[in-house]
Every structure is written in structure tokens, then in C-alpha cells.
């Protein structure tokens, strides 16, 4: 009965590599999000998609590229990984773009060495 799922849960990789994180929600929601939580536990939004369309794009390096093949999926691809990209990345979804209540996935802990 997983509502928002992410894979992988843990990702350890070297600087310069390219990696992807996948997210899927089975709630029938229209809107999905990617957040980054740093070592101080501060959660910050990166991107938001509504029905496969990008609606929020915060100041994020263009090495980060989200892709939404359909409204139930939002993947995050990161090129040329840097040490500072190490964080926990959370996917979330909400009923639609007006709904404030967001449901979070379990997170992907990315460690760049």
C-alpha cells in the first residue's frame, strides 16, 4: 500500500558520475515535487510538476533535470555529481497544484565521495 515510493533508498557514488532517482505515486495525484534535505535537516523545494508539466523550478544547478513521463512518475537525473550534492532527496505529491497537503516518499540518501 505504498503511497509515494522512491528508488533507490541509498545511493553512494563518486564525483563526476551521473545518477537517477525514481519516484512513483499511486494516490492519483496530479502534482509531484522534489525536495532536498541537507545535513541540517532543512527541506527545500527543487521542482514541481503538475500533470507532467513543470510548474516550479527553484534555483537549482542545471545538472539536475527532472522528467515526468506521466503524472504518476517524477524522476530526477543528476549529471556530474559533486560533493555538495550529498543529501537526502524526497519526492512528494499532492492532489493538485492548489492543495497544500503533500505526501512524502521515504527519501533517497545520496552520498557523493
Amino acid at each position, binding site marked *: 500500500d505504498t503511497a*509515494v515510493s522512491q528508488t533507490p533508498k541509498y545511493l553512494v557514488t563518486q564525483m563526476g558520475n551521473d545518477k537517477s532517482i525514481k519516484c512513483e505515486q499511486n494516490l492519483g495525484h496530479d*502534482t509531484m*515535487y522534489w525536495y532536498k534535505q541537507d545535513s*541540517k*535537516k*532543512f*527541506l*527545500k*523545494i527543487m521542482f*514541481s510538476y*503538475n500533470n507532467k508539466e513543470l*510548474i*516550479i523550478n*527553484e534555483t537549482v544547478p542545471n545538472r539536475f533535470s527532472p522528467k515526468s513521463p506521466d503524472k504518476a512518475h517524477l524522476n530526477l537525473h543528476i549529471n556530474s555529481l559533486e560533493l555538495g550534492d550529498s543529501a537526502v532527496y*524526497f519526492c512528494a505529491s*499532492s492532489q493538485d*497544484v*492548489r492543495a*497544500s*497537503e*503533500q*505526501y*512524502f*516518499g*521515504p*527519501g533517497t540518501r545520496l552520498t557523493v565521495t
Partner: protein
Amino acid sequence: EDKVVQSPLSLVVHEGDTVTLNCSYEVTNFRSLLWYKQEKKAPTFLFMLTSSGIEKKSGRLSSILDKKELFSILNITATQTGDSAIYLCAVAGNTGKLIFGQGTTLQVKP
């Protein structure tokens, strides 16, 4: 610039104590304020508040919003060790994105 500030940043109490967590905010076109609890993994939703002065309650947790003074409190009565977590406050404006505070880390000792 939109911002959310929580206090205290961390808190250590003993089981049975009552705690009050604070959240103040500045946001353009406020729509709602949300509280989340984060244990080891994903933040889990606790409350969403949109109107001033109306208390929301769930078991030992309750929360209220003051839109005039731009703050909210989260109360936990008769704390238990299972309440140990990071409590996150977030505010939604009309853009749909949530602005999070830095969180309050609560540790409840037996």
C-alpha cells in the same frame, strides 16, 4: 522573501511533560500552514491550518494558527518516547510550493 522560523531548534524533555513548539512565518499570499513529524524517514503529515483561532486536535497533539500575528504553535501533552522526532512547520502561498522552517528536534527521555 518568504520565510518560516521555528523555535526552539531543539528540546529535551522527560516523558509526561508538555511541550510547545513555535512557528512564525512571512509569506506572500498565505494559504495554509502545515505541521509534519519526521522520524527516521519521510515527513508525515500532522495538521493543516487555514483559519485563525481554530484548534486542530489529534490525540495528545494540538495546533492553532494566529494569522494576525503570523504564527502557529504545536502542543504535545503527556509526551512519550515515541514523540521523539523532528517537527517541521511549512507554509504554503499561492504558488503551491511549501516553505519549510528549519525544524525543532524533540527528544523525550524515559
